[in-house]
């Protein structure tokens, strides 16, 4: 039982990380229709940025998180400006930005590999290593911190989209670009901010995740895959869907790995199987779109 409860805490933490990456996908996907496979790279770059900032810059880990998010926001914004905006303005289809971002993914990855000599770097969480127990619930400091930070971020985004004029204009663009432009919403600005915000969120996910393992270039691909799997599972129409999808995915993975009577390697098949199942059976995910108002 204690075993299960401990698993729940760490699975929830993993689910939160997946959920944040899914949110990064969602932020770009909703207003532009583009799926950005480079989201995983952004997470990895965020982790590297935090490592540099806290190791060389000497900033405490808690400050390294927003600093890394800021660095990545700038990178995300630059990416949009360099590779996506020209395509959108030329009227290229949805596929072109997806492919351009795939090219950027490769460039990011190589830049990181070129810039860092070691394979792995350690990154401290803001509260260091240690365990806490709330009655039966037990987990590492970092696990609890991830859950808390993620909940705060999602509440923030939820309020932003539901309660602010700015958030509403994002939603308007997501629903109908042309109509939104006619309403006087600045499409360029919305798109640029989506990319900057998505990169910052992905970076946060990377920084939060790294203390549980290490900072390494290889972390990007699994995060990219788990992120879009979580996105499809939760449904692409609502912000909460990203978090829900992430949690469902992480629980499916962790419970299978721990309890299913199959080799642990085969448990890696859970993510693709879930993804295929959802795409074919429930392509809109768990959470349906809200009725249009």
């Amino acid at each position, binding site marked *: 039982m204690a075993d299960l409860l401990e698993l729940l805490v760490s699975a929830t933490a993993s689910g939160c990380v997946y959920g944040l990456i899914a949110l990064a996908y969602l932020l770009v996907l909703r207003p532009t229709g583009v*799926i950005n496979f480079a989201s995983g790279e952004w997470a990895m770059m965020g982790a590297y940025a935090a490592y540099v900032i806290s190791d060389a810059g000497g900033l405490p880990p808690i400050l390294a998180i927003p600093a890394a998010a800021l660095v990545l926001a700038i990178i995300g914004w630059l990416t949009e400006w360099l*590779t996506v905006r*020209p*395509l959108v303005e030329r009227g*290229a289809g*949805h*596929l*072109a930005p*997806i*492919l*351009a971002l*795939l*090219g*950027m*993914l*490769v*460039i990011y*990855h*190589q*830049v990181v*590999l*070129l810039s860092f000599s070691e394979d792995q770097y350690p990154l401290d969480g803001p509260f260091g290593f240690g365990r806490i127990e709330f009655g039966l619930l037990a987990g590492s400091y970092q696990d609890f911190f991830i859950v808390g930070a993620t909940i705060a971020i999602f509440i923030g985004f939820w309020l932003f989209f539901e309660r602010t004029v700015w958030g509403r204009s994002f939603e308007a663009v997501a629903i109908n670009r042309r109509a939104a432009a006619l309403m006087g919403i600045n499409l360029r600005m919305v798109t640029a901010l989506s990319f900057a915000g998505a990169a910052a969120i992905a970076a946060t996910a990377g920084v939060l995740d790294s203390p549980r393992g290490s900072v390494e270039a290889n972390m990007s*691909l699994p995060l990219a*895959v788990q992120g*879009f*799997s979580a996105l*499809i599972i939760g449904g692409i129409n609502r912000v909460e869907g990203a978090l829900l999808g992430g949690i469902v995915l992480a629980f499916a993975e962790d419970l299978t790995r721990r309890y299913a009577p199959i*080799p642990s*390697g*085969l448990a*890696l*098949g859970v*993510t*693709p*199987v879930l*993804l*295929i199942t959802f*795409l*074919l059976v429930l*392509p809109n995910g768990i959470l349906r779109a809200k009725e249009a108002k």
Partner: protein
Amino acid sequence: MGAAIRWGGAALIMCVVPFLLPLYEMDVYRKMLFWVALAISYNFLFGIAGQMALSHFAFAGIGAYTVVILMTQAGVPLLLAIPLALGLAGILAFIVSFAATRLEGFYLALATLAFAQLFIVILDEGGALTGGTGGLTSYKLPLVFGFEIQGPWLAIAMALVLLLTLAFLLRIDRSWYGRACRAIRDNGEAAAAMGVDVKRTKIMAFTLTSVMAAGAGMVYAFFDNTVNPPVFGLENAFMLLFMVIIGGSGSHLGAIVGAVLLRLLQDMLEPFVGQFHVMGLGILMVVVILVQPKGLVGIWDDLVGRKRAGRRKAKP
């Protein structure tokens, strides 16, 4: 007649070259043929039929593994193992596409990516059947009339697969079927209104090209008499996508140019810069998408077209 000479000439050159090359270069050459063959069929699937599938390498792997497993573990003779492996790839491709073709755009990419991932998981965990992460090794093609097929002869086999693939796809591309595929790629709704059975056409394109990939994979399996999971993984599936786009998606020539160029880039640069030649790949991709979505072939056409237009203007 002219066509027969051209094809015969191409075949002859492709078959003579491997005998003239030193061993290492011969190996580079035949692996390049493998990539070109895959790029040609992938171009039909992605560039012409408009399906962004990421399962092409998985099907090459299904062909490779199946033929090896049938021969070494089930004792099936080669001539029977080949059609069985192609048939299995065809059935699997049919099932995957039957399920997946109602997914559009990147949803199809995600579904086929998941399929490709699953394939690797199964290879890794397949125990004695697939040899696990190490794959299957040290098997051999049976002697054919007392003759051992190896080295450059396998390059010839790959050249034949490549030419067959190309001839087949060129024919159907220039027919009603190729037009139906392009029409669906450009506008599925209008294609249906013109009487094109969208689902059937898509399934056919996916199944045909996947079987072609399996065919190339089968020959590849005997290059080094080893098959292992990483070869058929996601990285190479994306590489294929890059080749087709950089060369010029939708163009057969583009697929060939893209595959040859990126293979050469890798083989020539790798000794000097290690794996950082991959950076060039990313830059090429971004530049091509931004500058000329029709790829290098499109850039070439632009240059030639401009020159021609200039000449026309120069005439009084």
